[in-house]
């Protein structure tokens, strides 16, 4: 099956004299696949996805990112606009700032369609159906309402409706539930999952919440300091992580079943900034399994296939 999205050695930096925030990133997503990109804040998860779509104007990109064979990096706005919205939909993190406060939500949803040439009436009808589909009550009336008239959960549904409006093949959801209450989180995630299944859309779920990864994705990329450290099927990763970092994060999850867990496990230290990446393996200073080898290799280890996935740890064979 042809890759829907294929990144090859993509690197991103925000200014010519700064370091790469992500460098040499490579992975593929197949049609209909649901991929999770997980990691701590600052790992480069959001930058990787948004910058290749041209949504970070100050970003300087290198490498290749192909969507259905078409190159995105360096592409003109005209080319990108054919893909954005129509073939890739985006759900952002903060529903309180993602919607234009000055425009009615109905207009914001139908905007993409109208720019494609749909008539106002058809766009409106389609929008009302969408609102219904994502679970906004009284869609006909609420078409004319403004964002501030909706709760956070409702606003996020509207954002999802916008992402779905032009019937894309891939949905990118960047921390879609972080700003919401736990109960609402589940509703929104169920909605996303349902839509992807019904429409045969691929999903890229960017999140730091491992629980979401395990429930809603088939495959996961663990990112650390701008690099992918593990690429495995989600279920397998939880049972059997292939990288110390993944293992560390999973161990961090508090376990209600274990009676003798006295202290919360953490990974000591903090993730490094892009101007201060450690030599060798970027994770080694915080890794409980590291040894001298991890420091002296001349760059961060690339992903190597291992068992059911890929790992970026040079000791993977001994450890896992």
């Amino acid at each position, binding site marked *: 099956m042809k890759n829907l999205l294929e990144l090859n050695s993509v690197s991103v930096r925000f200014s010519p004299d700064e370091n790469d925030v992500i460098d040499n990133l490579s992975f593929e997503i197949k049609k209909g696949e649901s991929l999770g990109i997980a990691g701590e804040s600052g790992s480069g998860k959001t930058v990787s996805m948004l910058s290749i779509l041209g949504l970070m104007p100050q970003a300087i990109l290198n490498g290749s990112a192909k969507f259905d064979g078409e190159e995105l990096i360096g592409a003109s706005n005209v080319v990108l606009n054919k893909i954005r919205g129509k073939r890739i939909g985006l759900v952002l993190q903060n529903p309180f700032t993602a919607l234009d406060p000055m425009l009615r939500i109905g207009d914001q949803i139908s905007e993409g369609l109208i*720019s494609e040439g749909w008539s106002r009436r058809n766009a409106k009808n389609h929008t009302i159906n969408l609102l219904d589909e994502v679970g906004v009550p009284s869609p006909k009336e609420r078409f004319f309402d403004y964002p501030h008239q909706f709760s956070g959960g409702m606003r996020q549904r509207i954002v999802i409706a916008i992402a779905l409006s032009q019937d894309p093949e891939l949905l990118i959801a960047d921390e879609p539930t972080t700003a919401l209450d736990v109960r609402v989180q589940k509703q929104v995630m169920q909605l996303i999952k349902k839509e992807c299944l019904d429409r045969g859309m691929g999903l890229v779920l960017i999140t730091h919440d491992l629980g979401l990864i395990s429930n809603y994705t088939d495959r996961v990329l663990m990112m650390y300091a701008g690099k992918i450290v593990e690429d495995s099927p989600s279920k397998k990763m939880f049972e059997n992580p292939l990288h110390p970092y993944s293992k560390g994060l999973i161990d961090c999850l508090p376990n209600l079943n274990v009676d003798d867990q006295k202290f919360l496990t953490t990974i000591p230290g903090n993730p490094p900034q892009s101007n201060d990446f450690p030599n060798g393996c970027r994770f080694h200073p915080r890794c409980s399994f590291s040894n001298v080898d991890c420091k002296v290799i001349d760059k961060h280890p690339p992903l190597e296939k291992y068992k059911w996935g890929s790992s970026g740890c040079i000791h993977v064979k001994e450890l896992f």
Partner: protein
Amino acid sequence: MSFESIKNISLYIIQRIVLTIIALVVLSFITFSLSYIVPGDAALVAAGPSAGKEKIEQLRVEMGLNLPFYEQYFVYLTKLSRGDLGKSWFTHQPILNDIKDLLPASAELVFFAMLFNIIIAIPLGVLAATKRDSKTDFSIRILVMIGAGIPIFWLGLLLQHFLASETGLFPIAGRLSFSNRNFEGSTGFLFFDSVVQGEWGVFWDSIWHIILPAFTLSVLFIAVITRTTRSTLMRALEEDFITLARSKGISEYRVIIKHALRNALVPTVTILGMQVGWMMGATVLVEEIFGRPGIGKYAVKAVTQSDIHGVVGVVLIVGIIFIFSNLIVDIVHLFLNPRLRKNSIGNL
């Protein structure tokens, strides 16, 4: 529109109207105080140099000058409500009539200056914001700095010298050419009257005459609005909803104009509204130089003639225009910003 929002809008408007009335009262108090504290004896001046003591006393009683401050103020207010601003000492006309005659000229000037402002400043601001940190942005910012630093009257003199006296591209002074000097309109607004009467010659003549003065007046304000538009637009472009708008694959033009600019214009419109008052105050500078009639010039003449009532009349009228334009801006704000229709009045 729901009942809730109608109620909120009405409350908002009522609150604004109450504030407007209070402002008008304060304004009248100030203008009255100004005329009250003029040194010298008004009765003496009114009576003339050869009047006897009795006549002066009689006038004093007639003019109500022996009454205490608050009673005089009350008399003043009653006169105002009838539109009686007193009589001008140098035109011997009721001041209100004088001002009514001259107001259209000043208003036209402000209108065209505002027109130049909007047409020039907003596109410049958009250009500077979208081409941020480029050479274009830099040149625009420099132009803005100079525009904000140039004295209006000096600029007027320069333009008049180079574009009118030396080259004859524009007329040197006046509202109309000598040949059209007898044109009489019904409202006093030349542009309106001339069209209504079908006198297209007069119409184009008045346009030719207003370009230089209106432009001179507008330069300072263009600088401010360009700067404002640039910064509000830059701020708007950094918002999340702009990223989302781009992700829909709509044209960048749409993103900037329909989303970013619409949000950015709200504070800009507020400032535009406030500029109306400033402009009315500044017309005098331009009227002086380009020999145009107007209330500014009238006020200056009144000052030199020690006609306190004339000056105070102008202060009052300009103040009223200022206060009302603020009210209008507030109401327009209401329609521009949907959030105001819902929020309770407290956070305004």
